[in-house]
């Protein structure tokens, strides 16, 4: 009787520790953003010249083992370095940040490439959801004794696919359709 009770206790202990270590493994494979060391910028063509903008507030969760990548961007946090232009872009004809405060990307598939991954998933921007492929390089570095994942790359989307630029701004003669997103992120294991 004591022996079987002991076996039962050991089995329980083993199960608990296995579950705990499984949780630990799950936690270890997930990375979270270091906002101060990360940038999400975009380039677009205005009157034939490359112009830049950036998003200052966004979150990224990346789990290479589980094959998950989720990005949320606070649309109000964009900045193109010009207050007049920012006002127009924040308005209804462009981002309409009052109605669509967030943009989201959720990868449904993570395909390994030679230098990193290609995340295929749904990008929701200004209320429109489209499937996009987001390529990026991924490497682990030791920065100041810290285990840091470096996620970098760029991908080009077409603004009109997401209804960005309405009315007179549907024309692409003076404001190009292609917008290239550039991401250079630092991520650390855990939350």
């Amino acid at each position, binding site marked *: 009787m004591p022996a079987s009770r002991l076996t039962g206790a050991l089995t329980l202990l083993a199960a608990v520790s296995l579950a705990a270590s499984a949780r630990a493994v799950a936690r270890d494979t997930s990375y979270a953003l270091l906002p101060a060391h990360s940038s999400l910028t975009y380039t677009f063509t205005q*009157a034939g010249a490359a112009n830049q903008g950036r998003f200052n507030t966004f979150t990224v969760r990346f789990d290479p083992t589980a094959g998950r990548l989720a990005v949320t961007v606070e649309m109000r946090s964009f900045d193109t370095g*010009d207050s007049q232009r920012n006002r127009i872009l924040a308005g209804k004809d462009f981002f309409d940040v009052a109605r669509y405060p967030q943009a989201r990307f959720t990868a449904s598939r993570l395909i390994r490439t030679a230098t990193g991954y290609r995340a295929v998933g749904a990008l929701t921007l200004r209320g429109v959801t489209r499937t996009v492929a987001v390529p990026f390089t991924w490497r682990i570095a030791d920065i100041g004794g810290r285990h840091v994942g470096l996620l970098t790359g760029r991908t080009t989307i077409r603004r009109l696919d997401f209804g960005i630029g309405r009315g007179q701004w549907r024309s692409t003669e003076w404001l190009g359709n292609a917008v290239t997103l550039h991401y250079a992120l630092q991520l650390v294991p855990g939350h």
Partner: protein
Amino acid sequence: MSQLLHWLIVALIAVQVTLGLIGLELPLGMEKLATLARHKSIGLTILALAAIRLLWRWLNPTPALPDNLTAIERFLARCTHAGLYALLFALPLTGWIMSSARGFPVSWFNLVQLPNLVSRSDALYHAMIEVHAALAIALGLMLALHIAGALRHHFLLKDDTLRRMLPGRATAAARCGLAADSSRNSC
């Protein structure tokens, strides 16, 4: 060549002033963006043409000023020409600096993107608006002097100065230019 450049620049200045004034009045929007983009492209074209003309002038001596001018008149004519050249360079350059300071890179007719001349600065941008406008007014005054001088040569002094700048007289003007020293009277 020099004559062709002269009239090309005249035509472009007329378009340029029109675009500049329209661009100034337009509300923020696509039309304003397009108008100012064209204004910048034409401004850069004028800058290039002025540079070519100056280079041409340096390689090919200009016809001498008529003999009937006093020293002061010669001085005034030289000042006006120098001033016009200075403004043909200064106006596009201050416009380019203005765009750079605003953080809007300039392109030439959507074909070539030009480098920014200065880094982003609101103070410099606002200063350049004032300078650009003042230079535009100065150009207007210089042009008035230049035209008044040309008309004076034609109607009061009754010499060939204006006529040799008119189209159809290119060969005569060139001959005069080349032969200015030996047979000035025939010009």
